[in-house]
Structure formats: structure tokens, C-alpha cells
């Protein structure tokens, strides 16, 4: 597919790296209505998205018109997919999805208000989001398992150690509905909150990187390849643009409605499960 740098709206650092280094080894893995995935060595997935989607470290967002042209060229799973010329791609600036620098202890009181506000909005998602139901004690067929593996939400002890929290999260990898099962989305949201907390406290995040690496290692065999890639992208503390924005706004400002809406539109329940994890993290860690 012949493209110019102007055709690409956003690109994550890992997607850029993979497209450049594996240019002859990108195979079409799965195709959806507004996106498709390429797979290359070491089970890395690159998501090719149109503008309605949220950009992650492993995705590339094309302008809608360009995406439609690519899509019309009949994508067949298993075929190679070439993007060229590589020089154009080299010139594209990568989207910063790292946790931004934040040191401002005075703002912390706002966080609690924002968390409660978001929790109220999340409650409306309880008819479809398993993890929202978990937070609200609404019974689903998953409730028993979640209580035994994650603990009853209200009883979650704030003083739990990080290792303990990670162990409990590991117990819900692959659990739930969707190509990124609910548990994984929840973990993703939680990790966002965790990495933001370390940045906020100006702490060295070596410890949580190690813990996350271990969790992700388990995920390799315990969940879908797409979800594994999603979790793997968290290892360096980088998160998708929408949840990153939401987390930032929850800490710094009162106006989180738009960002919350944007995250909730991810997948059909993925966004809500991610928000549930994010809020769980805020309640537990902040």
C-alpha cells in the first residue's frame, strides 16, 4: 500500500518500530469494520485503524478516506500487507502516550470528586459491563468468580501490598466477554491508574514494571493474542490516548465528561471495563 506521511493521522511508537523493522513480515491477522490487525514475529500485533478509533502504542490511524481505500482493496486474512515507502513512515512523529509529568499534591482533593462522578456515570453501564457490575455489587454469572479471585470490592483493603494486588489481578486474566476479555480491560485500566500514581509521587517505577512484566508473561497463554498485545503494551507505562487523557483530567481538572465518554466508546464493553479498572485503581491507590 503506497502511502505518504500525510495519510497517517497518528502512530504509536511500537507500531512505527514494527512497521519499519518488519516491513516484509506483516501478515493480515483479523479484519473488523473500522480496523484490521497485522501480525509479525513474536506475536506482535499492529492495529491499522480509521479515525473513529482510539490510538495505542501499537496502532496506526489512517485518515478515513485513505483507510477506506485500503479497506476496499479486499483484505484477506493470511495475506502479506506492505506499507511503503518506508522513508515516509520514518518521517512521522510518534504520538506521546507516556504518563505525563505530574507533581502537584494540592490537586488531590479533586480526584475523589472526579472518581465519584465517574463512578456514578459508570453505573449506567451495568447492563453490559461485567466489571462495572463488580464495582456496584450487581450480580452476574461472573460475580462469584470475581469475588473469590479479586475479592469483594467494598472489602478491598487499601493497605494491600502491590504484590498482593498483582496476584489477584492475575487471577482474572482472560475472564469475561470480548476479544479483550473484561478482566484484561479492567487490568489495563487499573495499570493506567497505578503508573500515573507512581509518576505523581515521583517514584521510580522499576518495581511496577517488573510486576507488570510477570503479569504479562502469564497473559501470553491465558488470553487472546489481541489482549496479550494490549497488556504487553503497558509494560513501559504507555496507555491508549483516551484513557491517558481521562486519567490526566481526573487528576488535574473537574471536567472529565468528554474524556469519559470517549473511553466508554471503546469496543462495546471494553471501554467501560477499562474505566472500572481505572476507578478501582484510584480508589485503592490514591
Amino acid at each position, binding site marked *: 500500500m503506497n502511502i505518504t506521511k500525510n495519510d497517517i493521522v497518528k502512530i504509536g511508537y511500537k507500531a512505527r518500530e514494527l512497521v519499519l523493522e518488519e516491513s516484509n513480515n506483516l501478515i493480515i491477522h483479523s479484519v473488523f469494520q473500522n480496523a484490521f490487525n497485522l501480525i509479525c514475529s513474536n506475536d506482535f500485533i499492529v492495529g491499522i485503524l480509521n479515525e473513529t478509533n482510539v490510538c495505542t502504542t501499537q496502532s496506526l490511524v489512517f485518515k478515513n478516506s485513505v483507510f477506506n481505500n485500503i479497506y*476496499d482493496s479486499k483484505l484477506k486474512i493470511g495475506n502479506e500487507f506492505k506499507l511503503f515507502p518506508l522513508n515516509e513512515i520514518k518521517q512521522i512523529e510518534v504520538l506521546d502516550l507516556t504518563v505525563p509529568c505530574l507533581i502537584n499534591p494540592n490537586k488531590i482533593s479533586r480526584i475523589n470528586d472526579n472518581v465519584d462522578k465517574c463512578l456514578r456515570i459508570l453505573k449506567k453501564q451495568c447492563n453490559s459491563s461485567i466489571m462495572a457490575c463488580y464495582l456496584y455489587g450487581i450480580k452476574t*454469572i461472573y460475580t462469584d*468468580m470475581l469475588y473469590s479471585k479479586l475479592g469483594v470490592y467494598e472489602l478491598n483493603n487499601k493497605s494491600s501490598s502491590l504484590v498482593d494486588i498483582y496476584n489477584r489481578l492475575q487471577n482474572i*486474566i482472560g475472564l469475561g*466477554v470480548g476479544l479483550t*476479555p473484561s478482566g484484561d480491560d479492567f487490568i489495563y485500566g487499573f495499570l493506567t491508574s497505578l503508573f500515573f500514581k507512581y509518576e505523581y509521587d515521583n517514584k521510580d517505577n522499576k518495581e511496577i514494571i517488573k510486576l507488570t512484566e510477570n503479569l504479562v508473561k502469564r497473559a501470553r497463554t491465558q488470553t487472546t*493474542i489481541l489482549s496479550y498485545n494490549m497488556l504487553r503494551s503497558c509494560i513501559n507505562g504507555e496507555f491508549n490516548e483516551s484513557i491517558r487523557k481521562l486519567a490526566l483530567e481526573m487528576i488535574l481538572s473537574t471536567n472529565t465528561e468528554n474524556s469519559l465518554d470517549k473511553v466508554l466508546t471503546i469496543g462495546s464493553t471494553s471501554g467501560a471495563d477499562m474505566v472500572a479498572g481505572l476507578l478501582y485503581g484510584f480508589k485503592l491507590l490514591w
Partner: protein
Amino acid sequence: MVSKCLIKANSYYDSVTLMIITKEVEAVTGVENAVVVMGTEHNKELLDNVGLLNDETSSATPNDLVIAVKLVDDGVFEDIVKKVEELLNKRKTDGDEDYCPRTIEGSIKNMPDSNLVIISIPGEYAGVEAKKALMNDKNVLLFSDNVSIEQEKELKELAVKRGLLMMGPDCGTACINNIPLAFANVVKKGNIGIVGASGTGTQEIMVQIDRFLGGVSQVIGTGGRDLKAEIGGLMMIQAIEALSVDEATEVIVLVSKPPAYEVAEKVLQALKKCGKKAVVDFIGGDEELIKKYGFIPATTLEDAAYKAVKLCNNSVEKVNKLECPEFDKPIEEIETLAKSEALKLSNKQKYLRGLFSGGTLCDETLKLFSKNVGDIYSNIPLSPEFKLTNKEKGNNNCAIDLGDDEYTVGRPHPMIDSYGRQQMILKQAEDEEVAILILDIVLGYGSNEDPAGSLVEQIKQAKKVFKARGQYLCVVAGICGTKGDPQVYDEQLSKLNEAGVIAMPSNAQAVRFAIRVLKEVL
């Protein structure tokens, strides 16, 4: 209870698809419980907890889709499998035979010899796509409305320049090379060419031509605004010019709401230049102007069709002296029927209520009624002082266009979905002063699968309510359809008869009959 599962190995379906599958499977009778998840270890643990784990589900891997169901009996399982496969195939996008491109460019690439583009996307985007089609030398049928008049002008000017058809915006009916397009009827092939700025008006003329044993060569829609001053009849004139050199066309029919004088002149001049015999129906507009140009005006849509068919084998002078028969059936029969209906009405009953899916048919009714009886209200009134005062139920004598915007917010158009009309029929039953209900039953492609069938329950119910009060509800329907339409005409007719509806073969006849009944009691 039986637990069964369907596994799609290495399958990735987007979350919307998975949700739809879950909902559809759960909705099947005999399904106690359904879980649709990927085959991860923890999900298998869950399935075990709810009693849905078996050897097959155990063998699933994290990248397999598992559809596990608990059934009352396992006979249902085959249906479920079929349904799931149907849903999954519908959403496949990796290039099989029903592959649909996402853009017009993609479609043109896939079908380079295409000659017509039909556009029904939202108006704010439709204009751009229509222009792309024209620039690629394709004729266009633009069904969408909410396209600005400035854009319409630009598109039509471009079409004229390139010698193409730009039917619309807001063009609901066309029939090119005898293929019905959008909302249109199956009509015999013949030598009458129709150019219409009105959807149901065109449909009624088409079907009446077929009924009078004539046929059509081409039916070209122009969209509702073509004869406005800003557009100046661009497409009607373009169509007339094309029909003038079309060998298959011997007679032309024009139909539209009354245009501005200058535009009428322009159109009639073009028609004159064309040199073929023509019937012009400006639905209640200036007849003198039409006669001045040597063409034949029509008093109703049915009349336009009648005269067009006669023109095929007769001179203009001869046809000018002809009048379309008032009714198909002998007048004595009609009179007897009207009298017997009127006798059943009680003293209080005096009003006619028209419930229409076709705007032009409603308009024709208003015109016939006000000419022959008196005041009639409507949401599309002939003059502002007769604007409907009771939108929910109607008032006095009235005829309502239920396809108008205010009645279709959040609901499909009444030509497709009868819910709105069903409710309106029931509401009329509450009014002791209602004597006659008049309905249009529009058949053809695009329309409801069973227009008559979808209304008979409510008609029967309404009649029952009147009977219980010691009254009688007279229901008259005009069928706009042909024997060739996908809804079987004779079946539609018998459904109406069985419900006690007096079915007439045209809108004009239905209105005339209703007026006769009303006049007996007034």
C-alpha cells in the same frame, strides 16, 4: 437440560457482532442460558461453574470463540448453529462474493461499466457522493432528502452539462428500462414516458396506465423541488429532451405540484420542442396554460393515465373530448353500494377522515373533496386556514399525510411500517362523528411486504367499536398497485374485502366513492 456448544476456532469477531450473537441466541425459544466468550482458562472455569463445560468446550483455546448454550431440548441446537453461522457470515469482511466496497470509488472500480448510482445516505453527505457519481459519468438517483437547494442546483447543472440524469434529491420513484427503482411498481412495457416531480403521484399514474392496458417506456423522477424557481425545471427539461429522441416513447406524461408560472412555461416550451403528444398534470394547477401549448391537462392522476393511454392511438383533439370514467363499475352498482353504506351510518356520523402514506394521494384527495363537498383540514392543507388543529386524532373532515416529517420522527415511513397508521385508525374509532375512513394501499418495490394485511386487524377492531355504539364505520381504500407487483394484488384485495373494506382500483375512485356516501347523509 442439555448443554451444547459451538466453537469457532481461531476466530476474531468484533465485540458488536459478539453482543448481537449473544442476544440472538438467548432470544431463541428453548434456550435457558447462553454464554459467548473466548476459550481462555478462566472462561472455561466460568463455564464449568454454570454447568456449560463439556469435552468440547474444554478443548477450546484462548483464540477460539465458544458459544455455549443450555437448552431445554437439543432439537433447538441445529437452529442455533444455523442462526449463528448466518450472523457471522453477514459480518465477514475478508473478501467473499458478497463483498461490499466502502466507497463509491471502490464500487466504481469493482463495476466500471455501471451506469446508475442510487444514493440513500444522509443528506449532509449525499450531495458530495452524487457529485462524485456525476463526475464519473454515472446517472444518479438521489433518494436522500435534506440536501440544500443550492447543492441541488449545482448537481443538476453539472448533470445537464454532462448529459446525465440527476434524479432528486428527494426522488422516491423511477423506473428505468422497466426496472422499478426505489419505491416503484411493476408496470407493463409500453410507449408512455413519465417525468414526475412527485413520488406517489408518479406511482399512481404508472399503475393506472398499466390498469388501462397501456405500458411505460421510462419513468424519470426529478425530485420534489425541480419545478421551483431556483431550479427552474432543469431535470424535467433534461428528461423531456431525452424522451424526445427515445424511439420507444410516443406519449409523454408530466406530473408535479403546480409550478411557478415562468417555470411552467419553460417546461411546456421544452415539451413543445420535443414534438410528441403529452398529458400534463400540474395537480390542480393552471389548465389553460397547458391547453395553450397544445397539451392535455388532467383532472386527477387516474385521468392523466387514462388520457395518456388514449393518446397512444388517438389524436389530441379526440382525447381532449374524452373523460376518464368516474368509476370502473357501472354507476348503478356504485350508487346502490354508496346508499347501502350510508344507511348504516348513525345520525351523529358526518366526517371523512383520510389516513395517507402517499403525500400526493393525500393532496389529490384534498382537491377532490374541496371541489365537490367543502372544507377539509390537513397537515398539508390547500390553504393555511385549514391546517389540522388536532394532530393526534384529526378534526372535522380531514386527510392526513402520515409520511410527513412530523409523523415520522423516530419512526419508519408509513409506506414501509404501518404502526403509525394502525394507531391512527384506532384513534378514529374513539370519535362518534367519524363516518368514513379513507386509506391508500400502496404496493410495489420498496413498500411494506403486506400493506393491506398490516392494517386489517385495526380496521376490524375499529369497526367493532363503532358497531358496539350502534354505529357503522365505512372504510374505503384505493389500491395503488399492479398485478405484477411483489405483493400479490388479488391477495391484497381479498384481505381488504374480508375486513369489510370497500376497495377501489384508484385513489380518485376511492375518494369519489367516499364523497358519494357522505353526500347521502349530508
